[in-house]
């Protein structure tokens, strides 16, 4: 493999370190990928500077995590609920540090049934995995594989907490949701130190299965997040995803969803709050492999200071996907002259009998709304904060209680402006 010629020295060193740790000469999890380091010249990475990632020192990387500040409602397991803390070696434990008692309907998959990339390659049939997934695959460690069965909903809360500099965390999660089964999955990812978090999630949704996923991922200016999820949907399955992200120096969120035979429902809601010098990038792909599939996608971003939000929403509707009903909306709030919003729908529609709509708006705070609040005695700063929160609320109100219970959401809502006298 012509790895060396195509990758920067940083990647080479990183791969060597990871390979040494796994005790293999080649990366362990995935078969050796064809590394192609993205440059700003490639369309998909045009706006996305990877410096925040490459600032990490590969020779000093470690996988130590901290224990997450679990809210009380999540701390205790039950017959329908389990909470797991993931660490960088692919290990997990419940908040008491025990191996969890698995709730009814949730079973760990035997490791021989887990091959990293097994779902991903059905979701992206041709071609190479994206960078985040490749790096995840190059990181040694076992996967968390779970099988969900039975009609009663199972609740799974996953948390990753990074507090030490030079942490490299690349958990791999495989979820097999059996036909008709139902999983409510919540994520809480937090990084308060210069670190990289690169989760890869693969989901197989059987016929009529449901997955409701809600993720909150927040980092600090030195932290990089490269998340990839691959969701394979069988007919009549329903996938709902709500994703809220803020604070990272760099975040690249890349969900790939494939309705293999159409006839399924996909609902995606995202909120990115880019302040300071944060760069928050979402590149989503939803593809329809059969007729009568449905997609509802709404992405909202707020950019302030020198924050930068990137959204690219790709929707693939080939000829066999007749009667697809897809809508995509990108709503953006631009709060400073130095902030940036780049938003782009990418509809690849060949079928003719379909209903596909998309829209994108970029606006500032409305003078009339500000004035209305001010005319009631609310100071301008506080009025601005209320309006920003109002903008976010449209996505936040969809979050399940289990996610709202995390105290960190308050940090997002308390937009950092001193209170009015």
């Amino acid at each position, binding site marked *: 493999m012509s790895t060396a010629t195509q990758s920067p020295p940083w990647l080479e060193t990183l791969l060597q370190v990871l390979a040494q740790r796994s005790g293999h000469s080649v990366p362990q999890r995935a078969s050796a990928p064809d590394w192609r380091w993205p440059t700003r010249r490639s369309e998909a990475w045009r706006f996305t500077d990877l410096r925040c990632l490459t600032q990490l020192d590969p020779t000093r990387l470690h996988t130590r995590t901290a224990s997450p500040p679990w809210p009380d409602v999540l701390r205790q397991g039950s017959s329908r609920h389990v909470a797991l803390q993931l660490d960088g070696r692919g290990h997990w434990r419940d908040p008491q540090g025990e191996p969890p008692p698995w709730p009814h309907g949730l079973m760990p998959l035997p490791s021989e049934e887990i091959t990293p990339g097994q779902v991903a390659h059905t979701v992206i049939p041709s071609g190479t995995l994206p960078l985040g997934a490749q790096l995840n695959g190059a990181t040694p460690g076992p996967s968390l594989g779970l099988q969900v069965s039975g009609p009663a909903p199972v609740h799974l809360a996953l948390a990753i907490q990074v507090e030490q500099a030079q942490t490299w965390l690349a958990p791999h999660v495989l979820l097999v949701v059996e036909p008709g089964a139902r999983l409510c999955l919540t994520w809480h990812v937090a990084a308060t130190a210069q670190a990289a978090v690169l989760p890869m999630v693969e989901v197989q949704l059987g016929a009529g299965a449901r997955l409701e996923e809600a993720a909150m991922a927040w980092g600090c200016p030195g932290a990089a997040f490269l998340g990839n999820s691959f969701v394979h949907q069988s007919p009549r399955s329903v996938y709902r995803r709500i994703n809220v992200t803020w604070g990272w120096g760099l975040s690249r969120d890349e969900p790939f969803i494939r309705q293999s035979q159409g006839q399924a429902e996909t609902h995606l809601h995202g909120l990115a709050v880019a302040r300071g010098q944060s760069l928050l990038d979402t590149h989503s792909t939803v593809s329809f492999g059969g007729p009568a599939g449905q997609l509802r996608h709404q992405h909202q971003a707020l950019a302030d200071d020198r924050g930068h939000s990137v959204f690219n929403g790709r929707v693939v509707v080939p000829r066999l996907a007749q009667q697809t009903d897809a809508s995509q909306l990108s709503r953006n709030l631009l709060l400073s002259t130095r902030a940036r919003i780049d938003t782009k729908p990418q509809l690849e529609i060949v079928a003719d009998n379909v209903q596909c709509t998309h829209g994108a708006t970029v606006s500032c705070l409305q003078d009339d709304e500000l004035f209305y609040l001010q005319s009631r005695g*609310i100071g301008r700063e506080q009025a601005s904060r209320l309006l920003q929160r109002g903008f976010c609320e449209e996505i936040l109100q969809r979050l399940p209680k289990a996610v709202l219970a995390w105290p960190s959401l308050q940090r997002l809502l308390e937009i950092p402006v001193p209170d009015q006298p």
Partner: protein
Amino acid sequence: MTSTETTPIRESPVQTGDVLLSIKNLHACVEGNEILRGVSLRVRAGEIHALMGRNGSGKSTLSKVIAGHPAYTVTAGSIHYRGRDLLALSPEDRARSGVFLGFQYPVEIPGVSNLEFLRVSCNARRQHRGQEELDTFAFEDHVRETMAIVQMDPAFLERSVNEGFSGGEKKRNEVLQMALLEPLVAILDETDSGLDIDALRIVANGVKKLALPTTATLLITHYQRLLDAITPDFVHVMAEGRILRTGGKDLAMALEQRGYDWMDEETDGADRSDTPQP
């Protein structure tokens, strides 16, 4: 017009008959168009004024200039509130000092809860008056009591500010805000428009209840029916950015019967800026 450093006007007790609002030869423009062309008006504690006039005559513009809307520039003249320069205050300090504008078109603010909005604004005014702020629970009791004045369903507290409210519901929400803020000068811009007969009675009763010997009310309206319920002390007619004529409640009745044309004819050739002042 608005400066960043503003000092709120401290609230001292008001006596009936005190001049609360004094507007002199006010000129204001928006996007280069002069809309107000010499408005003069004096309002004392205990008075109810009605402001009438054709569509586009400048009534809402006057109200927004008083409240401090940033789109309007005052090019000449002055507004004094309780003897202090009102134009030097930011919109929020005007409101905290006791000037209230009920909007002709209340603004919808998606995602901002009506309850929180009301609480934050009520506390801003309370703080200015040296009253203690109300916490969430105390405020909720307070707002529920106050809602009874306009017979509004507490369910409206859970919704976003004015979002999806009917025209009449928005107007009731304005009166609710007025009741919570207890202003010294309340300007109600067509609060009676879009109300059904029952709602008009409810709103009129609410406004009457809030009009005290120590406060003043300026009702902007097109209709006699509001003035049947709330008897004004003065009726002003605006035309082309000026107050063309001032009279008593009979003037409103004459307008209701005869329209505005007769006044144009009578005033033709006369010095239109010579507005009799109470």
